[in-house]
């Protein structure tokens, strides 16, 4: 029997539709997946426990390796002769946009892994699983950012989400962690079903799930079955809205952020959000640019609601994790403002915002992980009183990161908000820009409240306590602070990178060439 199989294989004349894979284009994803499986295999096969911290180190090295593999891709897509390319039968697109998002997602992996190390040892939960899950989740995020087919985007979304459900429910001794896991899982699965139904309707309306073919079909058809397509778009928006925690689909965010292990939240607030917005931009800005006039008003309403909910409800919170959860909703609203502009400047502003925000939020949750006590408790505002006396350096770093989130000049947060508002005004939505600035002022009250608690003096300051600062968590803090401050002083580098990270549509039949007609027309 084996002999006949051998014969068949050797005789096979021409493979049918032999899939032409550009392996280099998939290298970052494959490094992440292969590395995760390798860690899992080592964890299963090595009889004794490895030295503590080796899994974290492996994760950081893998993410750095994936970044190194992405550098030649960036050079290639920026090269005028070679340019962006589609691979895997047109299902994966490697362009400046996807490579930029890959870099941001991998940075989030590194920061969250550094934050995980000390936290897991304190909770006596050190093991390979959190790192494996995060690497797999990141591979899903990269897939989402580079998906050129709605089904691939769905698969990326699920790989990203399913791993994060487990990361949220990981703390088995803490009931709130399980509760967060169940809530996130049920609502996440609910939104995935909506997302998939949206894909099905778009498939029915346009006859394809490939973004290029959808865009071609829509630009060629004047009076198509637009009802199906619009319904599909609305459902897709529900799915994306859940993932990035945009109002009115934000209800899970405060509960999950409060209950889930803090380093998992660092990943959720940075990497998952980046992947969600990357997918949102690719689908709405690229494939459905012809329906711009239909979806822009919807995004407008979502952005206003999200910013208001995120800033106003944050004010009444007393738990720092909940406060930052609402502030992350507010940030999502800001990025939606950039999406609403639907211009090249808007995409650029969104990418800049996502990159800057990743470092700010991962650093902030890293601080919360350090300040909390064993059992992942101690995250209320009162626990931060006297932090400037107990750990002056951590308090100072946290204050700077919070000021950056508030958008104070000389931090990356200022330029992030500045570019978004500029893009909105250029696109003619001054109303949105004004609302955005008002909510930025409201939410800055929240950040100031935390800073005042840390630096305040008085009778209610508790007795001094020692707060251990693990080396890895310190490194994560240094990285996020360095990036936040240096981008705040010299925004040009990141801005020019974001400027060159344009998403494109290329027909699959012509790999390796740029199709100028595929680029959506600017207004």
């Amino acid at each position, binding site marked *: 029997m084996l002999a006949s199989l051998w014969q*068949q294989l050797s005789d096979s004349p021409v*493979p*049918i539709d032999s899939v032409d894979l550009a392996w280099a284009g998939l290298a970052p994803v494959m490094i992440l997946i292969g590395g995760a499986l390798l860690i*899992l*295999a080592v964890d*299963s096969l090595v009889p004794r426990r490895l030295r503590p911290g080796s899994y974290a180190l492996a994760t950081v090295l893998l993410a750095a390796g994936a970044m190194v593999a992405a550098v030649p891709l960036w050079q290639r897509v920026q090269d005028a002769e070679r340019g962006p390319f589609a691979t895997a039968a047109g299902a994966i697109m490697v362009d400046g946009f996807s490579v930029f998002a890959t870099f941001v997602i991998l940075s989030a992996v590194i920061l969250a892994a550094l934050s995980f190390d000390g936290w897991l040892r304190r909770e006596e939960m050190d093991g390979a699983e959190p790192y494996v899950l995060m690497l797999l989740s990141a591979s899903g995020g990269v897939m989402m950012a580079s998906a050129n087919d709605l089904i691939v985007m769905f698969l990326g979304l699920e790989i990203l989400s399913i791993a994060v459900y487990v990361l949220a429910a990981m703390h088995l001794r803490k009931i709130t962690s399980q509760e967060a896991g169940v809530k996130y899982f049920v609502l996440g699965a609910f939104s995935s079903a909506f997302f998939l139904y949206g894909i099905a309707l778009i498939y029915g309306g346009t006859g394809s799930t490939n973004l290029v073919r959808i865009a071609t079909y829509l630009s060629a058809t004047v009076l198509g079955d637009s009802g199906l397509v619009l319904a599909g778009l609305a459902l897709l928006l529900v799915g994306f809205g859940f993932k990035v925690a945009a109002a009115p689909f934000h209800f899970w965010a405060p509960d999950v952020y409060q209950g889930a292990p803090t380093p998992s939240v660092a990943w959720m607030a940075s990497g998952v959000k980046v992947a969600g917005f990357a997918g949102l931009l690719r689908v709405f800005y690229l494939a459905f640019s012809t329906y711009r006039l239909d979806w822009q008003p919807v995004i407008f309403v979502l952005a206003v609601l999200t910013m208001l909910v995120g800033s106003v409800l944050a004010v009444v919170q007393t738990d720092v994790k909940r406060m930052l959860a609402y502030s992350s909703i507010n940030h999502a609203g800001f990025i939606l403002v950039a999406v609403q502009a639907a211009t090249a400047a808007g995409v650029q502003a969104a990418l800049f915002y996502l990159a800057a925000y990743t470092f700010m939020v991962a650093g902030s949750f890293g601080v919360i992980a350090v300040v909390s006590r064993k059992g992942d408790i101690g995250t209320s505002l009162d626990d931060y009183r006297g932090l400037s006396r107990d750990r002056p350096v951590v308090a100072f770093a946290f204050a700077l990161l919070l000021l950056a989130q508030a958008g104070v000049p000389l931090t990356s947060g200022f330029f992030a908000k500045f570019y978004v508002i500029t893009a909105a005004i250029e696109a003619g939505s001054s109303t949105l820009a004004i609302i955005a600035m008002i909510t930025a002022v409201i939410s800055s009250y929240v950040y100031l409240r935390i800073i005042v608690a840390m630096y305040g003096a008085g009778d209610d300051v508790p007795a001094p306590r020692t707060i251990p600062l693990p080396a890895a968590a310190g490194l994560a803090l240094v990285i996020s602070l360095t990036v936040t401050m240096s981008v705040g002083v010299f925004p040009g580098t990141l801005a020019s990178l974001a400027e060159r990270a344009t998403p494109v549509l290329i027909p699959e039949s012509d790999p390796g060439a740029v199709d100028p007609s595929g680029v959506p027309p600017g207004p």
Partner: protein
Amino acid sequence: MSDFLRDYLTVGIFGLTGVALVGLLLGLGSLLRPTRPQPQKYINYESGVDPVGTGWGQSNVRYYIFALLFVMFDVEAVFIFPFATRVDAYGWFGLIEMGIFIVVLALGLLYAWKKKVLRWV
């Protein structure tokens, strides 16, 4: 009558025959057998162990991890069947690809085994 409905007519006749057959046998039985009612005959298991508790009692969860593992590995097989029908067409590329796929699955099983999930508790 359309072909569509004629197909369903067969189903209908089949169903009616079944119902009639069962009714006939049960009816004949009730006519032929002697009737001597006793309270013993009305409990669930006349000659077995008397049931304890209600019908909605919870069963042991020790099976659920096995069930979960089974679901996972069972469903993954759905990718292997389409490949198997066209082995010759995909050639070596397909075979290596499927080999990698199965190795990844085996890795999951290895992990479950080493984490003592497969042990009967």
